[in-house]
């Protein structure tokens, strides 16, 4: 239950911090980049396999802290997106490529790509960096 301001002050509860909203323009100009520590290989079929290390699970894992390698095979579209995650292509450019190559509706492509990249970034295999062009824009001297 949400307490009115006065009660929350009396009870000493802190107001939850507001999550800053990000402008969609900023997101569109972010360029996903692969984690250089991740080993990956491309098969003849075009599919990409990522080799990630994961912590062991189970009772023995408490004693044995070593990690094991796990292979993740990306599907056709996932592999295509992976190859574009080079820090050069922005989110918007990858959406454009998906629309063009797979005849997807722009919104459909945007939502799917956002979800997919979210999964990859949570697994730590990619991160995002601001696009070079947008950095250049910021550096422009004020007239």
């Amino acid at each position: 239950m949400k307490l009115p301001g006065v009660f929350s002050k009396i009870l000493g509860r802190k107001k939850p911090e507001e999550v800053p909203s990000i402008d969609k323009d900023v997101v569109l100009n972010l360029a996903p980049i692969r984690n250089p520590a991740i080993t990956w290989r491309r098969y003849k079929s075009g599919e990409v396999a990522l080799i990630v290390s994961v912590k062991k699970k189970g009772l023995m894992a408490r004693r044995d802290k070593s990690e094991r390698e796990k292979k993740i095979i990306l599907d056709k579209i996932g592999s295509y997106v992976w190859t574009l995650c080079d820090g050069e292509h922005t989110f918007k450019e990858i959406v454009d490529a998906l629309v063009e190559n797979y005849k997807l509706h722009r919104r459909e492509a945007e939502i799917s790509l956002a979800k997919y990249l979210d999964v990859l970034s949570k697994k730590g295999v990619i991160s995002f960096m601001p696009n070079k062009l947008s950095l250049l824009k910021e550096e422009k001297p004020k007239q």
Partner: protein
Amino acid sequence: MGFKKFGWWGFEVTIPDNWDISVDKGGHNKGYVRIDDPKVPRMEVSWEPYKKDKIKSLDEISESIKKELQKRSKDVKFIGKGGSAKIAKHAAKYLHWRINEFEGYVVFWYCDENLKFYRVQMLFKRDEYWSFKKTILEVLKSFKCHVKSDIYSWTVLDFNLKLPKDFKLISRSYKLGNIALAFESKDSYVFINRISVADVLLEEKYEGDLMNVLESEHIPNIRTRLKISKFKSSRSFQDDSHMGLVMSTSYKIGLIMPKEFYVKTRIWLCKKTNKIYAVTIAVRKNPELDKLRRRLETLLSTLCP
């Protein structure tokens, strides 16, 4: 900038090409739709029924909208006193508000043809006013809250369909790459799926592949209402840019007074759009409803562009 037609729950409007539905709530009686451009929300439409004997004047509504906006934000400012307009031949009122850098027009009116109160809000940034003004006028001029024909059009992203008025949308989901819609009318159902990236799903492009897509993507949509098991007959068809299957079966509901439905499913790959369309029409077996079944088949035969 190009424009396209958008239809939802009986209203039709022309909107810019890059605007699409992003939020929808409610149903035929009372509902809400938000339409966004690639970056920000642009238009909100809400509708609710009203009774002719319990009607508030548009001026009273204007005051209550003002209060509502003031409650939402202390910084709201109203530009001018508002004014009158005509939307689809109905007398309407509008308000122009500003909250910091954002502005909006709220237009509201009673549609005495379908006894509903409509409220449309157009949203834009302050510096977009002059470039956006023409679009606002174009959109509002084209707004039809009631259509004279007995057919409603439905638009989801780039996908359009037309159905008789009495078909109500009972479920919809816009999963990634799979739009699923289900409509119901008296003793009849229509189930539709539009599946993207067909070239990835149908790698080998053989009929069995299409059957797999049918089983995994379309049948679950049908089974939300009709627990059909197997199709009795099946035939394939093909032309320059399409290939698919037509299947039919019958289905009974009820033990004491059973209703028997004629179920016909068409699933096809459209090579031009790289999409798979699946349509199921379930109509109660009855000579009177035979005409409706044929009409539905004609209306739904042209789903892909």
